[in-house]
């Protein structure tokens, strides 16, 4: 017989949880992990014009143990997939994944009937929190993705969404 007990309903640390969520949202350390073209835009997001460090996310950690956020920036192919999966498993909870670019979302332009190499979306390997479309996405899009992830964590939006004038 199975009894499922949702512990989060019994023990609640509402304020502490909020505080932790806020802390985590402000301290997303990404894994130094570039795969292809999108990695260059990821580097550009760390550059002076876009400066990902404003959100406390410039601490690119090369070791998966110390990273909180995996930005899958590029194509994952079948040879690479076990390595990416291992990296994801080596990251410690709580961890998040951003699929950056069309390749990471769905295989992007490299999907065609009869293709033999590309994994059609990293969500086939592990859960993904935020998808950022683009080929490659602009650095602003990556920043927006990080803010979307923060919103997912805290429930609050950091900056209001700007709608472009018509």
């Amino acid at each position, binding site marked *: 017989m199975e009894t499922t007990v949702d512990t989060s309903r019994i023990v609640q640390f509402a304020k502490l949880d909020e505080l932790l969520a806020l802390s985590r949202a402000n301290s997303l350390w990404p894994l130094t992990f570039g795969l292809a073209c999108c990695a260059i835009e990821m580097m550009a997001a760390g550059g002076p014009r876009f400066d990902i460090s404003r959100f406390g996310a410039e601490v690119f950690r090369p070791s998966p143990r110390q990273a909180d956020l995996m930005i899958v920036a590029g194509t994952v192919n*079948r*040879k690479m997939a076990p390595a990416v999966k291992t990296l994801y498993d080596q990251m410690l909870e709580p961890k998040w994944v951003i699929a950056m670019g069309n390749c990471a979302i769905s295989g992007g332009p490299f999907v065609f009937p*009869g293709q*033999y*190499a590309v994994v059609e979306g990293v969500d086939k390997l592990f859960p993904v929190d935020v998808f950022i479309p683009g080929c490659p996405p602009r650095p602003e899009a990556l920043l927006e993705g990080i803010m979307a992830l923060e919103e997912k964590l805290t429930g609050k939006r950091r900056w209001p969404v700007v709608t472009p004038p018509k």
Partner: protein
Amino acid sequence: MNPTLDQLCDQFGRLVATGPSGSRPPSNPPAPDAPPAPIQRTEHAAKGYDLEVTVAPTAVVMAAEIMDRAGFALDAITGVDWIAQEQMEVVYDYFHPTAPGRVAVRTRVPRARPEVPTIAAVYPGANWHERETHDFFGLVFAGHPDLSPFLLPEDATFHPLRKDYQP
């Protein structure tokens, strides 16, 4: 026009005429085209190379040695799958680092038994190109040190650039 190329023409002429142990260029030329001349001077502006040589599969090592002596560098090795003619073509591209002149050496093997000797002993850089060609076409380079999958996953057994490849 180019003394190096003229000398090369001579040397290849001898190679094609005698060949290693009397072998001749492919006796089964691709139909319905007329058999191409084994040594052709081509226009660089039209083709992208200056000299095109067709040799027997057994002669590619000697061709590579000729190129090596002439100071050429290996550009690329590639395969083409002529499924209609039941043949596999291997193209060796050479360029010269200090003198003008681009040379393409071709050979054709039957598709049923695609085997070419390796030129890795002459050009160590050919090692990788041949491994890649083996990956894509299943061409066997006899005497190659390691033909395990290179660009494909380690356990891959398929050859995706063959025209009859079905995933």
